[in-house]
């Protein structure tokens, strides 16, 4: 793959998005580049789970509202128990 500029969605790095879903919604770590799997069903499912838990519109997409929410300061404990 050509070297991507730092892949971002809105103003949040893909790494941070991936870490958010891993840390708080137990997204499985599989070593693949997140930018390539962001539309895969596991990731979409986790985005939907997060949007549902936090009371947002459930789109499964990394839309602006979702980005905004992910940037907000929060507690470090997962939102769902593993």
């Amino acid at each position, binding site marked *: 793959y050509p070297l991507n500029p730092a892949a971002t969605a809105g103003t949040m790095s893909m790494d941070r998005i991936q870490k958010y879903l891993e840390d708080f919604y137990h997204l499985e770590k599989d070593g693949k580049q997140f930018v390539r799997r962001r539309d895969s069903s596991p990731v979409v499912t986790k985005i939907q789970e997060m949007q549902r*838990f936090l009371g947002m519109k459930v789109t499964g997409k990394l839309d602006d509202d979702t980005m905004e929410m992910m940037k907000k300061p929060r507690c470090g404990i997962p939102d769902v*128990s593993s």
Partner: protein
Amino acid sequence: FSFFPYMPKWRNNEVTYRIVNYTPDMNEPDVDAAIERALKVWSDVTPLTFTRLSEGEADIMISFSVKDHGDFLPFDGPGGVLAHAYPPGPKINGDVHLDDDEKWTEDTTGINLFLTAAHEFGHSLGLLHSSDTAALMYPVYNSNTDLTRFRLSQDDIDGIQSLYGYPSDSPDDPVPPTTSTEQEKPEGDPETCDPNISFDAVSTLRGEMLFFKDRHFWRKSINTIEPQLHLLSAYWPSLPSGFDAAYELTTKDMVFFFKESKFWSVRGSDIQPGYPKDIHTLGFPRTVKKIDAAFFDKGKQKTYFFVNDVYWRYDEKRQSMEHGYPRNIVTDFPGVDKNIDAVFEAFGFFYFFSGSFQFEFDPNAKMVTRTLKSNSWLNC
């Protein structure tokens, strides 16, 4: 609201805390005050009390740190994760870690220490996150919270009281009345102070004592003099009356009711799904048709079931009947040699009810220490 797996909670309502170090962002007395206020948020709605230690190991150790601080959950610099905490238990469990890369303040110009600490203490007491956006236990920090009039949401209160019950001096019912008839005195009341009264079953429930008789029961809180008489149907309309036995499994905040070969489980006024079940699923032989009395020994995590002149012991951890039973009651409980109507454990004693008498049994001395009238708890 939600709980950590296996619903860990503090066994002892007297919880200790210690402020291990301070943030340079605030004066130490202001940190002390914010922590104290954040703990009071929870002690106001539960029987919990919080005692501060200045050294040694406290249940809740509160510390400020940055990045990697030794628990495999490094902080992430300013913003992002503000803090984390661990559920009730030994060592790191119960502890609160605050990210000192945040700007901690008394107001909301930075990250408000009171608000964040109150949330983290929810975890230290056993609550996980809530999806109720108005709840303190909602995971995302809300800088618009009105700190001058802060109140827990009902979701927070319901969650923490499911774990610890009500404040000990609260007049609130641990089992909310389900019908208006709750206030009317039930017709045909049994005479509370009839010297010959006997009970079908007795149990504890979230710090109260319940005495069951036909269609009625008395509720006695340790903090009130007068017992309250209620109709069973006002709390558990779908349960039969005239129980044979009842006991509280305090580790799960449940009460089990037995009648003939069936038993039910309730949490507060909610009957648990999947009940009634057959008592033989607990491991009783088919020869046992009903249970006379039962109680849960918290210390041993075992439930004792009494049938005629013998008893069985059930291991609540392994969820199975223990081997070597039944045993004769009189062998292990000398002096308790009558057919038992009911039994419960209180203040370290076992109280066996038989007809209009009850025997106070000291399990350490292995002897009956007092014989009382059955209704001695009802302020007669």
